[in-house]
Structures are given as C-alpha cells and as structure tokens.
C-alpha cells in the first residue's frame, strides 16, 4: 500500500517568491483553486472547485491553518466530502521550503489517508480474522442509533 503522498519539487526561484505563491489568495487562486486563505494560525478557510460527484466530493475543501513559518513551512488541514457537514476525507497538507542555490526545494506532504489505506490493506492482505474483533465490533454495531 502506498504511504502518505510526498511530492518533491524544485523551483529556480527564491523561497520568498515561492512562499508568496503559497500564501497570497490571488496567486493561490491562479495555480490551485479559489480560496480565502490567510497565513494566520487558526484561520479557517475554504477552497472551491468543480464538484466530483463520482469521488464523493462536492467541490469544497475545508481547511484550518495550523502552522506558519514564513518562507519555510506552512501546514493546514484539508477536509472534504460529498456535501456540507459530511467529511469523507480528513487530511493534512504540509508545505516545506528550503533554499538550494538560487532556487528552492519544496516538499509537499499530503497525509492522513492512513485510516482508509490501513483498512483496505488489512482487508485484502491480512491473514486470519482475529477472534474477538468480531465481538467488539458487534458491540459497536449494537451501540449505534
């Protein structure tokens, strides 16, 4: 199973220029999606894009800024689902910038898929349905409304 998504990129531009593109709502709109981002910890914002009903996504990403280190690091949550109030995807984006000569090395980590991946992996790869789990899960089922 694939682990959390990590994408590395090199830009022949200084970190402050890349940072500007990561944090200016107008610029982010140009390369990513329409948004009301602010580089302020605790700020809640949204991205808006075309809905993908087949993917169970209504086109809105709900985010909250968790960490801002100018020109170095930006972290925000990335959640979405089929309609408002229903979250199917609960993930985290971490952007890190590091100067490299005249340019910048950027690492983007998109993490938090673990729950789904582990579940799918265990369903198809794990041998042996452990006794006891069924009972515990039965309890969960019973307690459901």
């Amino acid at each position, binding site marked *: 199973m*694939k682990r959390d*998504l990590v*994408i590395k*990129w090199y*830009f*022949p*531009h200084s970190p402050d*220029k*890349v940072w500007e*593109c990561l944090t200016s709502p107008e*610029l982010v709109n*140009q*390369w*990513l999606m329409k948004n009301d981002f602010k580089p302020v910890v605790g700020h809640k914002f949204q991205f808006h894009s075309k809905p993908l009903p*087949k*993917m*169970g996504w209504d086109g809105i990403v709900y985010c909250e800024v968790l960490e801002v280190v100018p020109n170095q690091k930006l972290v925000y949550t990335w959640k979405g*689902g*089929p309609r408002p109030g*229903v979250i*199917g*995807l609960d993930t985290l984006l971490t952007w890190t910038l590091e100067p490299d000569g005249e340019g910048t090395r*950027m690492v*983007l980590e*998109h993490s938090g*898929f673990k729950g*789904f*991946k582990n*579940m*799918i992996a*265990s*369903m*198809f790869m*794990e041998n042996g*349905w452990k006794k006891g*789990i*069924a*009972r515990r*899960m*039965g309890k*969960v*089922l*019973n307690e*459901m409304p």
Partner: protein
Amino acid sequence: MRTSTDPFQALADPGRRAILMLLSQDKQSINSIAGNFDISRPAVSKHVKVLYEAGLILIKDSGRERYCELNAAGFDEVKQWLGYFDKFWNNKLQNLENLLNQKHNTK
C-alpha cells in the same frame, strides 16, 4: 452496478467496516453475518443495503439464503480516490511552476 451511496460514507461507519472485514475472509449469508455480530437480522440488513448501494459488496441468492461478498470493483473507486491526489498535485505544482516562471522570468 449501483453506486447510489458514496463509498466513503459507507466506509466511515466502524460497524460496516467490521462487516467488510468479515466478508474479506469469505462470503457470508446475511444470517451468518448477524450471527457473527450478535445483532438483529434487520440491523444487519440495513448495513448490507448501504454497502451494496455503495458498490462495495455483491449480493447473490443461493437457495433460500442471500449471500454477500466483497466487490473488488467497488474498492477500485476508493483506491482511485487515493491515487487521484497524486495526479492532482503534480498537475497543480506544474501550474505553480509556470506561474513563478511567468512572474519572475521576464528578463
């Protein structure tokens, strides 16, 4: 195949995940699922319906029993969702690179 329910919504429920885990071992009749979980057959039927509508399981009649089994194709959609972001970000970061080049490389 019917997929009137979002598979992620179907998977979000721990009880339904438990049923899927059970089915990953072998196909089961609805009665035998109910037996495994100590819950009523109607409650199991409700979950089975959701899983079926999400395309995660198939239901086949055999004699008097209805058997449930995992539907691999339904899980492809879930895996596709995970692979989706790989392409998504590569695409978007290429946009970002183009934007930076446009803004700053006008020598």
